[in-house]
């Protein structure tokens, strides 16, 4: 029983991060109908940036966290301005392929800057003593992860429901021209969505780095897992992202625990295939509400 609990808690921790990355996919998808396949690279850059600032330069960890996330958000803006905005006919497919290209490019740059070795990154609190929960060990970093992800979920929810900018962003996503004729600067809303989504990815990178170590190629798999979680929960649904992420994390952890660690990554893709065959709209997704 305590073994099961251990797997469950480990799964929830990684699942929370998948959920956060999925949230990044969603924020952008809701505002632009775009899937950004460079999302995983933002996760990687968040982790490596945090490493450079916090470990190499010795900045306080809190400040390093904030600075890494801010820098990656800026990079998100830049991606939109430099690579996506100039496209003459902004149709989804070419734009998505550009994001794939951006992901390869960013990975290459990261390899040049940081090399191929993985780095270990300290947790947000110095104590490495695990906390005992019903006989299962929980690392303090896990608590940080779950806490931070929940905080971001709630924050994003309140932002969307309570603030004018949140509503304006939603309006833009539903009908860009309708929002435009009310005076909402839709291009700025799209930029904001890019910054948010990149920032969310970076947060994921910073909080997962102490558990997995970080390296230039960590983003690919994490991005795919996050995408899988978003699909599982229903693309565009924030709560779906959380549910999908945790579900995926737990399934993975159980598969590794009871079968073999070799099938860890296969789980995500089996789940992705399953959801695409059985319920393409995802668990919590509105069944493809037509936007007009």
């Amino acid at each position: 029983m305590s073994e099961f609990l251990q797997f469950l808690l480990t799964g929830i921790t990684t699942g929370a991060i998948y959920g956060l990355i999925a949230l990044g996919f969603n924020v952008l998808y809701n505002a632009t109908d775009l899937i950004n396949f460079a999302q995983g690279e933002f996760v990687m850059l968040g982790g490596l940036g945090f490493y450079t600032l916090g470990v190499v330069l010795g900045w306080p960890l809190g400040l390093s966290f904030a600075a890494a996330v801010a820098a990656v958000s800026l990079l998100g803006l830049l991606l939109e301005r430099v690579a996506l905005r100039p496209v003459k006919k902004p149709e989804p497919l070419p734009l998505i392929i550009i994001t794939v290209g951006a992901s390869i490019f960013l990975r290459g740059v990261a390899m040049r800057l940081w090399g191929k070795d993985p780095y270990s990154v300290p947790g947000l609190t110095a104590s490495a003593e695990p906390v005992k929960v019903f006989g299962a060990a929980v690392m303090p970093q896990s608590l940080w992860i779950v806490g931070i992800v929940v905080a971001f979920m709630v924050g994003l929810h309140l932002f969307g429901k309570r603030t004018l900018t949140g509503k304006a962003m939603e309006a833009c996503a539903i009908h860009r021209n309708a929002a435009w004729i009310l005076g909402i600067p839709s291009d700025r809303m799209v930029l904001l969505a890019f910054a948010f989504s990149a920032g969310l990815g970076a947060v994921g990178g910073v909080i997962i780095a102490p558990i997995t170590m970080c390296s230039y190629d960590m983003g690919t798999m994490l991005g795919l897992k996050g995408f899988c979680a978003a699909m599982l929960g229903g693309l565009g649904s924030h709560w779906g992202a959380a549910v999908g992420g945790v579900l995926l994390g737990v399934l993975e952890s159980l598969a590794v625990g009871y079968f073999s660690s070799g099938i860890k990554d296969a789980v995500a893709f089996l789940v992705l295939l399953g959801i695409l065959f059985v319920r393409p709209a995802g668990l919590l997704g509105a069944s493809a509400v037509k936007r007009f």
Partner: protein
Amino acid sequence: MLIVRNLRAGYGRIEALHGVSLSVRQGEIVAIVGANGAGKSTLLKTIAGLIVPWHGEVLFQDRPLAGRKPPEIVAAGIGLVPEGRWLFPPMSVLDNVRLGAYLRLRRGDKEAVREDLDRVFELFPILAERRKQPAGSLSGGEQQMLAIARALMSRPKLLLLDEPSTGLAPLLVEKIFETLVQLNGEGITFLVVEQNARAALAVATRGYVLETGRMVLQGRAQELLEDQEVKRAYLGKDYREFAEGRAR
């Protein structure tokens, strides 16, 4: 108030407006009638800034607006109620209406916006009743009212209406146009584009007839209503004339 001179605009390489001119004076209700595809919507969209004109002038209160983006045009005091209403269906009625005041809320005019919300809900009590419901759940007539209410929240001096009668039962059409007259009495100037020429000209001060991208006729609304050519082309026979014709 609004002067449009020799406006040319279109989509891709196809020109839809071949040099259109018109004027709207403060306090008027001006109707533009014409058949489907005459360029009526294109004209309003160009004035509202959604389409960049190829050539020509748009002057609003002596300010050149041609080629400006919609947010700037809304800020100048021109609102648009588009054809098809363009609501935000999953959002609540209240959110839809409030977003109409986006620029004013950005400026921090919270108090004034709240007062306007009350006024708009007074004007359309049915919307007040359904303020919590998603806009997509409203009936066609209520959606049209919501689109007008939303546009009013920017406090426009000139309101452009694109086919407000589309898809509505005659009784509702009448109600919508009554509301226009009432709002006009409160100082809002209107430029209304309509296929339902009779309903539009009945409340308008002046009218224009747009035909395949050109203004072919203009005059006082009453004159246009009585014009033989307009009658034949755009008014059809109403059921009484039709019945009389049969009786004879």
